[in-house]
Every structure is written in structure tokens, then in C-alpha cells.
């Protein structure tokens, strides 16, 4: 069997259910692959791991991948299991926010590390300065405490994760206002599969990836169809023992909505929209030039047809 190491963007959770399902259900084995899944976390930059040879393929968000490309690490999107973006800004109604215009003068929690560009782009379109004059920006940690402690009026959340933590903490959905980046027209592509450009020239590697993507998409579609089973598989693979069943089942349900529209093939329209968003991100854009060759259908064409 061929060895494949997959680096995830975040810790083991239902966000990556497709890969764990493919592993546990033997889809990888059926393709004669021996797959190792490496969980990520806030201190892990997947492109760096790839550059160091620690992984063959990674799950990453497009902004971060494009930034890496500009910094001299040629990585290429080979598949895009997530059709839509799950990122949004979640606000407490009691702070007086109900429309984007109300954001002026508020304190907002934002994820940095490459994930701030949709936000900056959005603020740019709203005409709000982020240097503290119009809105005050905080680098948000990994949980939803700033909202609960009222240190920020709004925080970044994922539809499938942090939003539900706010709900679980005891705040009712009707007390919240959410702005999906998808709806604001500044969504960026999340959770694609990326490899090093140089490797793609190697037919053996290409073949391995074809089989990998095929098995992974099979896993994703199985997870969409059997969300509860998929969630339990994720739970079994969580080594920290920190996840709960309810949370993962609910997350799987939400993730399924995001993967629903994709068979794994990247839609160039989505790609172009992401690039537009990133380049409109105000004074310090994440990428300075239109990227070339940052995605390919080479793998998905072979895998899915």
C-alpha cells in the first residue's frame, strides 16, 4: 500500500469527518492507500508542515494557501470538498447590532493568521476603518468567551462550531444576530485539499492523489448521508477525549450543508471570487498579484470521471 500523510487545519472534529470516515470505513484501504491523519491546531501552519516534508497533502483555507504561494511555497489546490463558506460574524443583539451599518463604533473579535482578509474586505466595502477609528478589532482566541464576557460586540464563528458553543452557553438564537460572509459576498474558499506543485509532475504521486481524492470524496458523501455515524467515528478518533457527542453530531449536520454542493471539483468562479475578496482587503492585502496555477483539475478529473 502507498503511504499518504494528511495534515488537517484544525483539531479532530466533524469538520474533517469525510477523511475519518474514509479511513474507518476502509475506503482508503480499498484504494490501496495507507493514510495517516495528522490533526492540526492554532499553532500549526499546515503549509509549513508540507514544506518540511511532514505531510503529502493538507486541508487548508484558500487565503492561507495563496499567501504561502506568494511567500515562495508553490502549493496547488487539487480538490475542493467544501462548496460554501461557514464563517460568519456573530453579534449580541443587546449591543445594538442588527445591520452591518450598526457595526460602527463596536469592538469586533476576528481570527487572524490569514483568516482576517474576508473581514477586512467586508469592512472595506462597508467603508469602515479597522484601525480603531470606526471599529476596534481584537485578535480573538480560540473560543467564544469574548462574546459571553461582553468584551466584544461580535466575534467570528463557524456555522458548525463556535456558533453552537454560544448557544450551548445559554444564549438563545433570537438574542443573536449573525452575518454570514457568504451572504455579504466576501466569502472565501475553505477546507480544500492542497499539495506541492512539484510533486504533481510525478506520475506515481499523481496516481496516489487520484486514489486519495476519490476515496476521500466517497467518505464525505457517506458522512453526509450518515451524519450520526460519521460523528461517532470522529469521536472515536479524538485522542484528547475532549469532544462531546451532541456537539459533534450537530457539527456534522452543519458541515454536511457546506459540502453538499461539491463533488470535489473546484469551481473556478468560487476561486476568482476569493481572489477578488483577498485583493480588496484594504491597505495590506494578503496577496499582491493575481495568482497563476494555484489550482488544477488534473486530479479531480481523473478521480471523479
Amino acid at each position: 500500500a502507498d503511504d499518504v500523510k494528511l495534515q488537517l487545519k484544525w483539531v479532530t472534529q466533524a469538520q474533517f469527518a469525510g477523511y475519518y470516515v474514509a479511513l474507518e470505513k476502509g475506503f482508503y484501504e480499498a484504494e490501496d492507500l495507507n493514510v495517516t491523519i495528522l490533526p492540526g491546531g492554532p499553532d500549526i501552519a499546515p503549509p509549513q508542515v508540507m514544506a518540511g516534508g511532514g505531510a503529502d497533502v493538507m486541508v487548508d483555507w484558500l487565503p492561507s494557501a495563496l499567501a504561502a504561494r506568494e511567500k515562495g511555497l508553490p502549493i496547488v489546490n487539487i480538490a475542493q470538498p467544501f462548496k460554501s463558506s461557514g464563517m460568519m460574524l456573530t453579534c449580541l443583539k443587546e449591543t445594538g447590532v442588527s445591520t452591518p451599518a450598526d457595526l460602527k463604533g463596536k469592538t469586533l473579535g476576528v481570527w487572524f493568521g490569514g483568516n482576517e482578509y474576508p473581514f477586512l474586505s467586508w469592512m472595506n466595502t462597508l467603508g469602515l476603518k479597522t484601525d480603531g477609528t470606526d471599529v476596534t478589532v481584537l485578535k480573538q482566541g480560540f473560543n467564544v468567551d469574548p462574546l459571553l464576557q461582553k468584551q466584544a460586540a461580535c466575534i467570528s464563528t463557524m456555522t458548525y462550531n463556535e456558533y453552537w458553543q454560544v448557544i450551548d452557553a445559554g444564549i438563545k438564537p433570537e438574542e443573536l444576530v449573525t452575518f454570514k460572509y457568504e451572504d455579504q459576498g466576501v466569502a472565501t474558499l475553505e477546507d480544500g485539499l492542497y499539495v506541492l506543485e512539484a510533486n504533481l509532475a510525478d506520475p506515481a504521486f499523481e496516481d496516489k492523489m487520484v486514489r486519495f481524492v476519490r476515496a476521500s470524496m466517497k467518505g464525505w458523501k457517506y458522512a453526509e448521508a450518515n451524519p450520526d455515524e460519521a460523528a461517532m467515528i470522529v469521536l472515536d478518533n479524538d485522542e484528547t477525549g475532549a469532544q462531546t457527542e451532541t456537539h459533534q453530531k450537530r457539527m456534522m449536520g452543519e458541515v454536511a450543508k457546506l459540502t453538499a454542493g461539491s463533488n470535489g471539483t473546484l469551481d473556478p468562479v468560487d476561486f476568482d471570487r476569493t481572489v477578488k475578496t483577498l485583493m480588496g482587503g484594504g491597505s495590506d492585502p494578503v496577496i499582491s498579484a493575481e495568482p497563476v496555477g494555484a489550482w488544477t483539475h488534473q486530479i479531480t478529473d481523473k478521480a471523479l470521471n
Partner: protein
Amino acid sequence: MIWAFGAVLFWLLAMALNTWLAARHGASRAVQLFIPALFGITLLVLWEGLVRGLAVSPVILPAPSVIAARFAGALPILWTDFVQTILKGALSGYLIGCGAAIVTAIVIDRSPFLQRGLLPVGNFVAALPIVGIAPILVMWFGFDWHSKAAVVVVMVFFPVLVNMVAGLKATDALQRDQMATWSASYGQALVKLRLPAAMPFLFNGLKIATTLALIGAIVAEFFGSPTRGMGFRISTAVGQLDLPLVWAEIAVAALAGSAFYGAVALIERGVTFWHPSQRGRS
């Protein structure tokens, strides 16, 4: 490859030169500055040579020349971050933490009961890993530098306390006996004997605390911060694979830390001039 070999060769030559200089002219002031400088340059040359020679990817480890260029280009950013993290976060936390520790040590010094109770508990608290405390303190004290100062206070308090308590006990029996024969009051013995005798120990703690203060302030920013600060910059730049900027910030941290340490060591030299460890090298 030529780069790597060249660097290793340079390393060997520089080490030989240093050894020779130290043996021959070790006492001269200039040589005492030159040797560590050459050592540092050697490390940098070795680094540059190996990175180039072994074609290490710039997103894993950039070469010093690249870092220097980024450093020069990012001076305003580096300065803002320096002010936020070091001057506001680390320094204020250091002063509060060390001050509180010294006062506490003197207060509990009179009570063996409190010492026996507090020190073990204090050691326990000191062992709490910063990565666990930082998010909690950010939650309590907010995102700005106040929470960073709080982390620094927690980090420096116990090392300084433990050293100060040990220092207050460090008088020798003869010196204490003298105070006893003069029937010195507690306060007199404290001011005239025990505080001076404690200084070498106190400075030990204060020196350790300088590096802790820096690390604490920077790391706390990983867990939430305004959009400036060295820890903020490092964590976001890693996400953007802007490794040269990361290393430029690290260089600032190392420079500031060494300067901070050096300043405390200088004060120490003035205050504890009488201690054998200082007398040896005048």
C-alpha cells in the same frame, strides 16, 4: 554545498581564534566584548551557510540576511509591537510582580508559620503552566496589555519570592550573633544585616524574572490581543508564512531580553560589589 562547507570552515576558524584570544588576551576589555560578538557572528554565518547550502525552504527557516532585510523594512511595526508588549506589558508586570514578591517576602519573613504554609503552595502555583493561565487571565483582564502584565506578575512573583525568602535567611551565624549581642530590633537587623545579605539572592531571582517577563508577555498575546504586539505579530505572521517577520520579532525579543538582563546584571554589580562572585572580576 559550497555555502555549507564555507560556513563550517568559518566556524572552525572563528572558534580557534576565540580560544587563542581568550588564552592570550582574556583580560582586556575589548577582547571580552569581541569574543561573544565573534561567537554570535559565527552562529549567524553557520546559519546562513547551512540554510543556503542545504537549500532549506524559506517558509521553514529563512536565512539571517533575509531576516535582516525584513527587519529593516518593518521598523515601524516592530517599534509599535515593542512598545505594546515590552514597555507596557512586560515592564509594568515585572515591576508590579517583583515589588509584590519582595514585600511579601519581608512580610512573611516574620512568620515561619506563613512561610511553611505559603512556600509549598507558592511552588505549586509557580508550576502552573503559562499556557493554561494565559487564556484565563485574558478572560479576566481583557485583551489589552493589562492581561499581559497580569500574566507576567504571576510568572515572576514566585521565583522572586522564593529567592528573597532564601536571601533573608542567608546571613551567617556569626553575623546574626553580633546583632543579637547588640540587641538590635527586628527592623534594625532587617535593614542593616538581612536586606544587604539578601541582595545576591534577590538579584538571582530578578535576573531569572527578566526572561520570564518577556516570554510571559509575548505568549499571553497568543491567547487574544489588540491588533498589535509581538506575540500578535508572530502568531499572525506564521499563519501568513511571513517567517522573516516572525524572526525579526524574535530578534527584537532577544535583543530586548538581553538588554533587560544586562541592565539588571549591571545594577546587581553595583549593589553587590562586595560579594566574592563580583569581586573576582573587577
